[in-house]
C-alpha cells in the first residue's frame, strides 16, 4: 500500500535505515519503502501516473522508471523497494527517453483534443505531455474508439481518454469495496468495464464519484447538469432556488486559485447571486433540520426499543451501497431524507407557499460536493410536493465552471449573506461536511433535548479526523450511548458486518461514503488528496467555531419552521415531507 509522507516519516523513526544515492546525493531512508517514496521524502520529484497515495501499487504505466546502477532494465520506482547501497539515477538520458516514449505510446492511443475534454487544465496526462516537452507523437496507428457511457445518473465514462492506470478500479475496490468496475479483455483490447460489461448505470456503482477523483485523465467525469441549470436560470417563468452544501464553501475557492482550506462562504454567496439564481439558500439549514428529525428518531428508538443501532442516511452513496450489499440492515438506517432532499421538500412546500409560488414553477438547484446527489435527486420517492424535490444537482466543479463561464471571479467577490429564512444555520450543520460531523451535531442536540441540560464541551474530538473508524461514548440520562463513525465504505464494512452479525455494541453509527466525508466527495475540485482533505476539514471546524449558534435545535429558523408549518419533529407532516424509504437492489 502506498504510504503517505507522514506515515513514512513515522516509519523512519522506527525502522532500520538503509543508505541510498539519489542522483549522487546520499540519503538514509527506512528499509522497505519504495524508491518513489524515498524520492518524495528526500524532496526529489518523480513523475507518476498509475501510482496513487493510499492505493495498492500497480506499476503498469512505466512513467516513473528510474535507472538503478548494475541493473540492465529501468525499474518502476513506485514498486521497487530500496536496497542498501542502491545508486539511483532519476534523470539520465535513458530515463528521460523511456518516460517520454511511454507517454507518447499512451498518447498514440488517445484523442488529442484537450479543448473538448472535461479535464482540460487538471489532467495529469496533459500536464506530463507539457512537462516532458512532447511535441510530436512518433507512433501512429490504430486508436481504440469506444462509445461514451452516459448510462449512469452520476458518472460519465469516456473510455477513449482512459490510459488504463487502474486507479479507478483500485479506488472502487480498495477504498469503497464496491468493485463496480474492473479491467476487461487483454492486451491492446483491454478496457475498464463495469459489472458484466453492462453500462455503469446498470451496475452496482453507488455513484460516489471517488473514481473520478482518482482518474488522472478525462476518462471519468460527472454527468453534467450545467446546461439544464443555465436553461432554468435564463427561463423567466422559473423561480430558481439554490442551495449550497456544507462542504462546498471550503473547497470552491480552489478552482479559483485560493489555497485549499480557504473558507469562502460569503464570496460564494455573492458569486452565485450574480450567476442569476433567484435565491441563494443554504443546505446547512436543512442539515440542522436533519439533526432535529434524526435526533428525535434516535431518541424515539431508544425509548420505544426500536431497531438499533440507528445508522445515518444523509449520504446517498452509502444508501445505495446499503441497498445492494446490506439490505438486511435497511431497518437500521434512519428514514430521514438527506439535507439536500429535505431542502427541496421544504423549498417546494413551505417556502413556495410562503412566497405564493406554484411549486411547478420552482426549480431547486443544489451545489454539492457529491456526484451521488445527482442520482439521489432523481429517485422516484423524492417528490414531497408532487414535483421532484431537487431538480438539478451540480458538483462543486461544475459550479466553479459555470462561474468561470460567466466571468465571475470568486476570489474577487465581496462577502454577502445567504437569503432568509432557508439560509440560516448553526455550526452543527457546518460540520456535516466532514466525517464525524453528523454524529457530533447529533450528539450536541440529542444530549440537550433528552437531558434538558446544557452540554459543556461541544467539541467531540474522538469522532473527528481521518481514522477509518472512530468511536465515542457519552452518558445520556444514565445510559452509556456508544457511537461510531466510518467514512469510505471499505471502512464502513467493518462496522456493518458487526451489526449484521448482531454483535455491534453501538447505538448510533454515522456512515459517509466518501473518505473524509463530503469534503472528500466525488464532486469536489481535483485534486482531492489526503493533504487537501485535511485542510478542508480544518476549515469546516473553523466555520463551526466562528458561528454564534452551534446546536441545531437552537436554530431560530428551524424552530419557526416547526411552529409555522411542520408541527412536531417526526410528526405526521414531517414524516410525509422529510422521511423516505429504501429498496433492496440486485448485487450484479
Amino acid at each position: 500500500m502506498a504510504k503517505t509522507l507522514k506515515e513514512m516519516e513515522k516509519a523512519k523513526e522506527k525502522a532500520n535505515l538503509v543508505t541510498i544515492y539519489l542522483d549522487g546525493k546520499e540519503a538514509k531512508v527506512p528499509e522497505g519503502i519504495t524508491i518513489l517514496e524515498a524520492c518524495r521524502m528526500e524532496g526529489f520529484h518523480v513523475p507518476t501516473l498509475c501510482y496513487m497515495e493510499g492505493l495498492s501499487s500497480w506499476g503498469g504505466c512505466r512513467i516513473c522508471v528510474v535507472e538503478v546502477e548494475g541493473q540492465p532494465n529501468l525499474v518502476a520506482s513506485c514498486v521497487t523497494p530500496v536496497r542498501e547501497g542502491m545508486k539511483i539515477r532519476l534523470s539520465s538520458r535513458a530515463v528521460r527517453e523511456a518516460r517520454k516514449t511511454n507517454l507518447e505510446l499512451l498518447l498514440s492511443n488517445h484523442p488529442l483534443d484537450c479543448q473538448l475534454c472535461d479535464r482540460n487544465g487538471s489532467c495529469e496526462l496533459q500536464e506530463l505531455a507539457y512537462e516532458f516537452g512532447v511535441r510530436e507523437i512518433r507512433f501512429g496507428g490504430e486508436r481504440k474508439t469506444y462509445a461514451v457511457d452516459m448510462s449512469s445518473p452520476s458518472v460519465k465514462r469516456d473510455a477513449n481518454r482512459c490510459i488504463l492506470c487502474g486507479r479507478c478500479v483500485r479506488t472502487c475496490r480498495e477504498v469503497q469495496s464496491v468493485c463496480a468496475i474492473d479491467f476487461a479483455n487483454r492486451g491492446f483490447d483491454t478496457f475498464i468495464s463495469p459489472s458484466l460489461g453492462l453500462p455503469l448505470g446498470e451496475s452496482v456503482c453507488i455513484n460516489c464519484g471517488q473514481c473520478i477523483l482518482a482518474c488522472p485523465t478525462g476518462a471519468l467525469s460527472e454527468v453534467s447538469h450545467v446546461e439544464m441549470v443555465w436553461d432554468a436560470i435564463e427561463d423567466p417563468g422559473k423561480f430558481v432556488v439554490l442551495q449550497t452544501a456544507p462542504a462546498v464553501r471550503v473547497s470552491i475557492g480552489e478552482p479559483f486559485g485560493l489555497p485549499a482550506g480557504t473558507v469562502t462562504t460569503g464570496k460564494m454567496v455573492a458569486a452565485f447571486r450574480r450567476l442569476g439564481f433567484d435565491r441563494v439558500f443554504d443546505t446547512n439549514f436543512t442539515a440542522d433540520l436533519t439533526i432535529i428529525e434524526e435526533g428525535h428518531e434516535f431518541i424515539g428508538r431508544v425509548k420505544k426499543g426500536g431497531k438499533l443501532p440507528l445508522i445515518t442516511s444523509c449520504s446517498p452513496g452509502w444508501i445505495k451501497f446499503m441497498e445492494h450489499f446490506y439490505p438486511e440492515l435497511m431497518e437500521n438506517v434512519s428514514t430521514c431524507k438527506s439535507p439536500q432532499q429535505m431542502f427541496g421538500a421544504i423549498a417546494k412546500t413551505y417556502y413556495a407557499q410562503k412566497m405564493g409560488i406554484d411549486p411547478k414553477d420552482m426549480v431547486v438547484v443544489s451545489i454539492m460536493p457529491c456526484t451521488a446527489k445527482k442520482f439521489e435527486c432523481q429517485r422516484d420517492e423524492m417528490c414531497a410536493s408532487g414535483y421532484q424535490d431537487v431538480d438539478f444537482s451540480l458538483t462543486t466543479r461544475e459550479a466553479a465552471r459555470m462561474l468561470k463561464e460567466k466571468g465571475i471571479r470568486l476570489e474577487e467577490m465581496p462577502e454577502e449573506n445567504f437569503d432568509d429564512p432557508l439560509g440560516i444555520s448553526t455550526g452543527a450543520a457546518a460540520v456535516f461536511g466532514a466525517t464525524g460531523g453528523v454524529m457530533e451535531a447529533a450528539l450536541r442536540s440529542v444530549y440537550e433535548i433528552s437531558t434538558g441540560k446544557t452540554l459543556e464541551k461541544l467539541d467531540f474530538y474522538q469522532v473527528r479526523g481521518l481514522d477509518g473508524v472512530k468511536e465515542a461514548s457519552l452518558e445520556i440520562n444514565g445510559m452509556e450511548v456508544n457511537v461510531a463513525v466510518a467514512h469510505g465504505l471499505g471502512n464502513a464494512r467493518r462496522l456493518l458486518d458487526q451489526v449484521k452479525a448482531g454483535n455491534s455494541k453501538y447505538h448510533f453509527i454515522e456512515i459517509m461514503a466518501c473518505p473524509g466525508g463530503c469534503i472528500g466527495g466525488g464532486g469536489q475540485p481535483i485534486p482531492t488528496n489526503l493533504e487537501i482533505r485535511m485542510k478542508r476539514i480544518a476549515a469546516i471546524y473553523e466555520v463551526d467555531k466562528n458561528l454564534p449558534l452551534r446546536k441545531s435545535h437552537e436554530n431560530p429558523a428551524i424552530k419557526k419552521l416547526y411552529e409555522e408549518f411542520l408541527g412536531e419533529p417526526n410528526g405526521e407532516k414531517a414524516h410525509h415531507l422529510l422521511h423516505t424509504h429504501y429498496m433492496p437492489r440486485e448485487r450484479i
Partner: protein
Amino acid sequence: MEESLYREIEEIIEKYREEETPLLCVLQEVQEKFHYLPRNVLGYIAKKMNVPSSTVYGVATFYSFFETNPVGEYVIRVCKSTPCHVQGAFNVLQALKRELGLKEGETSKDGKFTLEVTSCLGVCGVAPAMMINDVTYGNLNDERVREILALYRR
C-alpha cells in the same frame, strides 16, 4: 434461462466448494456445459460464489478459451505461431476460411463452426496444427483440412 440450468451451475459451484479460489475451474466447467458464458450465467456465478461480477467478467474476458459471446458447436482454433507459420499455417487458415466461408472470429450461420486463430498449441512437431474443441490435429494441408471438416460436418 431455465431453472434447471441454474441448478446445474449451482451443482458445479458446489463441487468446488472445498477448493480455494476455484473461479477458473467453475467457469471452465460451466462453459463446457453451455459452450459459452452468457452474461446472466456470469452474473449468477458471481452471486453464488460471492465474487464481484466485474471481477468475473474481467476474468472471463481475459482468457482466450472463454467465450462471452455465442460460439459454434465446434470451435476451430488455428495456430499461427511462428513454427506453424513457417510450415504454412497461413495456407491452412486460408483453406479453412474458404471451406467454411468464415473470417477469423466468425461463427457459421448453422451454428456449427467458429473459426479463431490462436497461439502455439504445443504440437509444433506436427505443424501446422489446429484444435477443434479439445482435439488437436496436425500436419495440416488443404486436403487434410477438407477431410477433417468432413468428420464434423456429418
